[in-house]
């Protein structure tokens, strides 16, 4: 097996494992917490024909789908980021552009999915839900890409810095 393939599997494999960890954290921690917020502190009032329970189930379902999409975007960043520099474009700023592309891909997908899938409500529940979706996407995508991006693009994500300095 060539060095490139071995290195690719090593770096993107590690990245994928950490992404899975953050995704599970989001699915079983964050989304549950957000559901609790909606249940106990911010009672959503859906429009006629929809119960609060149905709205919450929808919120959880969309949240899970969007978390998985964010995880896929993160892995997509790792794969494309790894191969980006294998074609001798070192002076290019495209590494950061690529990172932003995947990031906004995850964020915009969350935004539009939330817009299209949400049941109508009488208050600002859907706006808060959208905020949570975005937060979930950021929490999956950003820390993983800051800490575990492939070596050649490890500082392309915003605020990525050497740990040991």
């Amino acid at each position, binding site marked *: 097996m060539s060095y490139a393939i071995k290195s690719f599997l090593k770096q993107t494999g590690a990245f994928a494992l950490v992404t899975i960890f953050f995704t599970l954290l989001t699915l079983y921690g964050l989304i549950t917490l957000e559901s609790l917020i909606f249940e106990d502190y911010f009672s959503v009032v859906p429009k006629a024909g929809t119960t609060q329970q149905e709205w919450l189930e929808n919120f959880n379902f969309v949240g899970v789908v969007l978390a998985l999409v964010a995880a896929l975007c993160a892995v997509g960043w790792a794969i494309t980021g790894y191969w980006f520099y294998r074609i001798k474009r070192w*002076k290019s700023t495209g590494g*950061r552009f690529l990172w932003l592309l995947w990031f906004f891909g995850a964020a915009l997908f969350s935004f539009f999915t939330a817009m299209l899938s949400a049941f109508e409500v009488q208050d600002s529940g859907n706006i808060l839900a959208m905020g949570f979706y975005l937060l979930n996407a950021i929490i999956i995508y950003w820390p993983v890409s800051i800490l575990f991006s492939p070596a050649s693009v490890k500082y392309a994500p915003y605020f990525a810095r050497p740990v040991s300095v």
Partner: protein
Amino acid sequence: MSFYAIGIGGTGAKCLESLIHLAAAGLIPGHDKKLYLLFVDPDGSNGSLARAGKLLETYTSAQAKQFGGADFLDTKVRSAKDRVWSPLSQQNNNLGNFVNYGTLETDLQHLFDVLYSKEEKETSLDKGFRGHPSIGATVMAAAFDLEASEPWQQIKNNIELEINNGRKAKIMLFGSIFGGTGASGFPTIARLLRNWIGMLPDGSACLIGGTLMLPYFSFETVGGEELKAEAKDFLLNTQAALQYYYQKEEIKELDCTYLVGSDDSRQVRQTAIGGQEQENEPHWVEMVAGLAAVDFFAQEHSARGDYFLIARESPDRLSWTDLPDEHGKVKTNILQLTRFAFAFLSTYMPMLEDILANGRGYRAPWYIDYFARPGVDLRSSLQEELRYTQTYCRDFVLWLANVEYSVNGKIDDQILNLIDFTSFAEEREDKNGKRFIALRKQFSLDAFQNIILPNMKSDVAGLEVLWERMCSSKPKIQSNSSAWAFINQLYRLCGVVD
């Protein structure tokens, strides 16, 4: 152990040039690698000497900025303050003045007239001994003084210090047998050094070796000068000199003698009696001479009385197996240095310059790891250690390309020998229509894996892998050592073969 190398004349200077590159490739043996260099030439403006001197300056300037341990340029190369010793002074610039001909007694004047022609007495020697060793031998023997003149005194003191501390020293002399300065200086300096070492209490701790360069190039005859070296005389001069060495047992003054030459005496591009114009391109024979010094330095004992012979397998080709390489390091080390120079010149230095100009250091993670630190000034590093390294790398790859080019004197895909330099150097024509080798403005990055022949693509990493490894490295940097830590790491990684 410390090593001394003395290059006598233009060819000697070119041999030292090769030795500096071999030292940079880490081929000088031992742990505490020290190499002391001295040039001997009455023609201080000689172009070949100037190029070798400039190379030495670049090497020592880069090394002076080293901080902490070194992988790249690990041999400490030094020279005297005046790195060129000339046996002539400004006033005594011809043989007549040198011996004070005008004040000699009449009988001595007549004897002198028998030994030397009018031209030999009166021609200015500021461009060397012009292929007349009889002039050089007189001047060298009279001017050489280990006790009173620098830099000889300094060399003497250094060697005495080494021996008194129980260490050994080795001196290697380089000179051509067929010219003027080398042919006259080589035996004279060897004999005088031997006499001095013989008087030391532990003289056996200092060995003297010599590399005599037999003819390996020729040149067009220079018009308008009466006293000059002529290529047509080279073989005859060589035959006479070798006969002299044999009969007088001059070679026995040396602990080890190497005779290096080539029967393929191709014309050099520029023909000149001396001065700046006498700058001949590097030649593969000089690399072999440098390797002879490496061999001598690595020998445990004196090789007096032993005779070894190596030759090329094919008269018009040169392969790595033709080169003396007892420890199997020559090809590996030169490959590492070549890869380093190529990568540094084509990718890393331009990237650092680009980051300094345009920012966005995140493009090169190794930049953030090594340079984006408190107290590290990239601008000053680019003006000093990185710039010296760049200059050295340029000198090295150009030298290597010329070594390859000198084997056949043309570029032909079918007859490549040691390296394929076409990715970083190209053939150009000078104003006289003569071809020479110059560095390309843009290197062909895809060829990185295939510079050293035979093709090593399968087990040598490409630039992408090198870049990735640089980005993955975890530097342990002390203050002020960022640039050298970066250089050393890049150099180390260029030696990794999968």
